[in-house]
């Protein structure tokens, strides 16, 4: 190769490299932090973000994750320390409200309208991310809490119709108990799985409005409404319908009891399907779903669960990039990939509904017909939630003492909400 040719090649290389550098330099970074840190969550999210980078070459996403418990601390410190990411995952409800009250989140009403999300996100789901009249938390997925059961165990006990009312539910429990299996498995070692019992008994006996008041500190744990709800729960513990030693197990161990046929059902969120699918269980044949039964037909029915969403902090360095990424997250393709990958329901109804497995399709259909309320620990303030969760665990340990536990919880309430 002649010297001249080498010289030309060198010049060409310099031009190519510098052009590339300019292109790379023109990209603006969008930093995202989320709590999908497990292998499956990370892999699905990485695929979604790669897709965004490919479709939007002007942006380069920096993807980071942390386990959800550590995330709670980490994100608050980065916000207080003035170095938050441009966008981060967050739970709709009281946790978002806390940061909204600190004036650290960007309202996204205009962006929501421009993106046309009212047409694809159910109003109930949008409401969960709306605080002080503004949209702050844009939903990514919804988890619905209901009864997940083992159809083979039900069949063996002669149950073919799932209960829709409280009386039918008690009859089913009795039949299951008579057949020799524990009707209900609950793993409340980490307390939160027990909260859905409180959520549903309160909202099914006192109504969703009262329940919202209780969560906001406008009603009290010493109210008769709460006692009625606890009595409904106690009815089941007194009859021996719960598998023994609930506080010794975690939710996944309770799920395993149902899968292994040691118990018939568990009150849990749709995330349970992710665990069962990974363990090789088949929807409909190995597990199925029915909603929490109606206790008082006069009271409007709601579904409890959790919504994972995205928020943009006020001091985001690249808010435009964050909004572009947010729009990408709400596209039907991404929503579908995410929902199927996570065993969750998509926040957007624009996805192909037939893509859900039959059990998830049932949960989606149910969600479409009723209003949504977040679960206990996402609905009330974190200090109040601590007091309430303690109460639920104590109740499962000794249901007879619930009046005393309620009185203790009321003391926490007085501290938190000022009596």
């Amino acid at each position, binding site marked *: 190769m002649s010297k001249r040719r080498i010289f030309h090649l060198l010049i060409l290389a310099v031009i190519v490299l510098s052009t590339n550098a300019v292109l790379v330099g023109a990209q603006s970074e969008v930093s995202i932090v989320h*709590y999908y840190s497990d292998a499956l969550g990370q892999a699905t999210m990485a695929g979604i973000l790669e897709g965004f980078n490919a479709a939007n070459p002007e942006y380069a996403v920096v993807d980071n994750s942390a386990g959800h418990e550590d995330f709670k601390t980490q994100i608050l410190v980065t916000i207080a320390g003035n170095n938050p990411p441009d966008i981060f995952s967050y739970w709709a409800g009281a946790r978002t409200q806390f940061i909204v009250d600190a004036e650290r989140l960007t309202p996204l009403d205009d962006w929501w309208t421009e993106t046309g999300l009212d047409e694809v996100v159910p109003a109930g789901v949008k409401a969960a991310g709306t605080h002080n009249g503004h949209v702050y938390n844009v939903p990514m997925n919804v988890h619905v809490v209901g009864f997940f059961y083992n159809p083979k165990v039900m069949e063996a006990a002669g149950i073919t119709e799932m209960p829709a009312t409280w009386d039918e539910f008690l009859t089913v429990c009795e039949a299951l108990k008579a057949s020799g299996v524990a009707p209900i498995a609950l793993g409340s070692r980490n307390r939160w799985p027990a909260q859905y019992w409180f959520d549903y008994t309160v909202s099914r006996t006192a109504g969703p409005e009262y329940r919202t008041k209780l969560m906001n500190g406008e009603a009290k744990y010493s109210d008769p409404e709460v006692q009625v709800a606890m009595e409904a729960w106690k009815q089941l513990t007194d009859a021996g319908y719960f598998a023994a030693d609930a506080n010794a197990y975690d939710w996944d161990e309770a799920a395993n009891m149902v899968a*292994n046929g040691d118990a018939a059902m568990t009150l849990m969120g749709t995330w349970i399907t992710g665990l069962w699918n990974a363990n090789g269980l088949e929807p409909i044949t190995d597990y199925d779903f029915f909603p929490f039964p109606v206790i008082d037909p006069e009271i409007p029915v709601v579904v409890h669960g959790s919504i994972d969403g995205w928020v943009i902090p006020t001091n985001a360095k690249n808010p435009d990039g964050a909004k572009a990424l947010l729009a990408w997250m709400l596209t039907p393709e991404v929503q579908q990939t995410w929902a199927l990958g996570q065993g969750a329901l998509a926040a957007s109804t624009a996805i192909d509904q037939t893509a859900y497995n039959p059990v998830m399709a049932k949960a989606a259909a149910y969600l479409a017909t009723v209003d949504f309320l977040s679960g206990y620990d996402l609905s009330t303030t974190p200090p109040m939630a601590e007091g309430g969760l303690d109460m639920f665990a104590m109740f499962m340990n000794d249901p007879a003492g619930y009046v005393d536990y309620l009185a203790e919880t009321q003391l926490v309430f007085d501290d938190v909400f000022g009596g």
Partner: protein
Amino acid sequence: MTEATRAVSIPVDSASATSRRAPLSARLRTVILYLLLTALLILYSLPSIGVVLTSLKSNAEIGREGIWTLPDQASLENFRVAWETGNAQKYLLNSLKVTIPATVISILFGVLTGYALSKLSFPGSDSLFTFLVAGMFIPPQVVMIPLFRMFNRAGLYDTLWPMIIVHIGFGIPICTLVMKNFFSTIPTAIREAAVIDGANELRVLIRVMLPLSLPSLAVLATLQFTWIWNDFLWPVIFTRSDDARTIMFGLASLRGQYSVAYGTQSAMALIASVPTLVIFIFFQKYFIRGLTLGSVKG
């Protein structure tokens, strides 16, 4: 047999009976002791056995059989996932990069301050000692946000530096306390003899005091290494990306919000425990001696 011999023979018989019974009761005591020790050993090992068994099983099998059964088909897949997908290799390296310098430097400072406060008393040295030791009582949560802001402004956020610096800072009080107390047990005459022989303070410290301090240094090294290695709070606060995370943070991240990964977590927990185990085995001889230092006087 005469009365006299009978009188003598009685105690002899009784004595020989006692001598025959003694080994039996001693043996019984030994058996009971060993049974008790074995029971305690099993009890103490149970969690570790559970972790090892879990690390060799798939999540589906753990779901089906629980953690206490022997694996149907023992597999090292969880270790592979923890090492490759779970990034254990990177986290392990980061943990070493934080723990080794932080341990060495905090002990070094502890030795210097401990020696100065113990052997080179000066006006206010007692107050200074109290001031230093008082640092142990500052809860890390109190300084979390100021430290975050400081490191963020210094451009050190999401690097290993904040963890190294903070561990050195939080390590100095305990290292000073241990080393000062240890140096106080060494007779001052030894130092004076060395000084009379012409050694300067640094030489006295390195050549005379440190060789005598090996047991307490080993205790400090083991404890500091373990504390820093197991630290979870500071990586949560000071890091955002995988590049700057330590093994304890990685271990916690394996569990998702609504997912379980017992197998992989157990595998990573075992990987994470190897360095502290090695350190303990390495220093074990000194460690036990160091713990019992001063327990017998005279």
